[in-house]
């Protein structure tokens, strides 16, 4: 489903990611793990055709993200770090609007709204203005927006950030329920989330892939947190030594 080869991105002189390669099969749920500023968002943005890479290739469902970007974009549902919400619109008209942008006709859009309102439990706020919604609902509207056209690939950037534990759990179960029918990539810097939702973990640290393994292999009996800290800490120590 996703093939990434030697993907590199520089912001001017500053390195975003360097030489990232991985493959993700259909129906997998993969967690991007890493501290803030490690390059998770950059990788995702390249995959969803938001920005071009400096070098390297990425293909989604066989289409190159740069040369066949329109096909790629049709197959993707994307929830950015800040959900792209228009405060003065109602949830229904917003979802309709996104559906139209994603290529649905009127009827499909209406069905899509029904479906995602149900899956994301938005029925009670469907005619409220987005600006008046709570943080949890806003996040769910963001998720619903990514799901409206029933995409093959879901890219979720920090889907649980800033939510309280209850909301967090709701979102997680929502993501889990989507597994199987969709390929899902989600990024987070919160470890337990990965453990609870993902089958596979890709750890990105300082723009490079530090680890790529199935969850069981990655932890290898240890606690996830320990494994992660070890991975990152080792490098950090090394760096200190160099200095």
């Amino acid at each position, binding site marked *: 489903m996703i093939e990434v080869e030697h993907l590199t991105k520089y912001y001017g002189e500053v390195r975003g990611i360097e030489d990232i390669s991985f493959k993700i099969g259909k129906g997998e749920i993969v967690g991007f793990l890493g501290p803030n500023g490690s390059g998770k968002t950059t990788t995702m943005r390249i995959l*969803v*055709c*938001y*920005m*071009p890479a400096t070098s390297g290739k990425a293909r989604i469902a066989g289409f190159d993200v740069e040369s066949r970007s*329109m*096909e790629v*974009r*049709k197959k*993707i549902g*994307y929830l*950015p770090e*800040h959900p*792209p*919400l*228009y*405060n*003065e*619109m109602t949830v229904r*008209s917003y979802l309709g*609007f*996104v559906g*139209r*942008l*994603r*290529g649905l*006709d009127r009827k499909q859009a209406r069905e899509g709204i029904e479906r995602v309102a149900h899956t994301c439990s938005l029925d009670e706020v469907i005619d409220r203005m987005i600006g008046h919604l709570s943080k949890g609902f806003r996040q769910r509207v963001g998720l619903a*927006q990514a799901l409206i056209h029933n995409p093959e690939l879901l890219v979720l950037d920090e889907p649980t950030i800033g939510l309280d534990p209850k909301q967090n759990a709701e979102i997680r179960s929502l993501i889990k329920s989507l597994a199987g029918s969709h390929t899902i990539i989600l990024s987070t810097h919160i470890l337990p989330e990965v453990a609870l939702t993902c089958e596979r973990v890709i750890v990105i640290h300082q723009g490079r892939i530090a680890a790529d393994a199935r969850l069981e292999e990655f932890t290898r009996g240890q606690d996830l947190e320990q494994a992660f800290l070890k991975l990152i800490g080792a490098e950090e120590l090394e760096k200190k030594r160099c200095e």
Partner: protein
Amino acid sequence: MRVIGAIFWKELKGYFLSPVAYVVLTGFTAISGWLFYQLLNYFLRITNIVSGYMVKGQIMREWTIADDIMGPLYKNLSLFLIILVPGVTMRLFSEEKKLKTEELLLTAPIRMGQVVLGKYLASVVLLFLMLIPVGVYMSLILYYGSEPDLGTVLSGYLGLFLVAFSLAAIGIFASSLTENQIIAFFVCAVIGLLFFSVGLAARSVGVVSIFSRQLDLGELLRQLSLFEHYSHIVAGRIQLTDPVFFLLIIIFFLFASRINAESARWS
């Protein structure tokens, strides 16, 4: 078409669900109504006393509806548009940048040209509604006036639309430059003012020679002047360059906005 329609309706609803549309419509209607009334009143008063514009007891030119009511009205309103149009267009892209909703547009399977066009059409419709009252005044004049100069009055009215639509294209471009609406406003107003006033400079520059070739810089500046072209249309003397100028302004700035909006990817 589908995408343009979706963007268009979203933006148009956005205008009417926020105070923007009402402030703009109320303000412009009040200003244009007051101006119209003043000009009409003055015209009525003056034509009761003298039949024409007199110098040394001789009639230099007759007072007419086209030249003494509608012409000045159109010209003054075009100056108000420099302030009002940026107010209408400043949010179109700046807000998307500010609220990070731009990311949605850039990752949806749509072309940026469609987005620009949809947004532009929404602002054009609002401006169209804004200028309708002026049309009402015009019809009043045509109804009550004796032998009004229909062609001139109408062409001036159309010219007003062209000015508004050109400024809207400039405004969209300004909005695509920055996430700060205030800056977008001023950039549009300044570009608009430049296009209005560049003709003034034409008077003081003449023919210059560059690399031993004659270039009529004054004429070039005059052709670049929005107000110059607009004055022709208001006077009822439409040269091919006049409508073409406005069309080119619109096309240029819409394309520039598209390129600019697309460039958000490379930051």
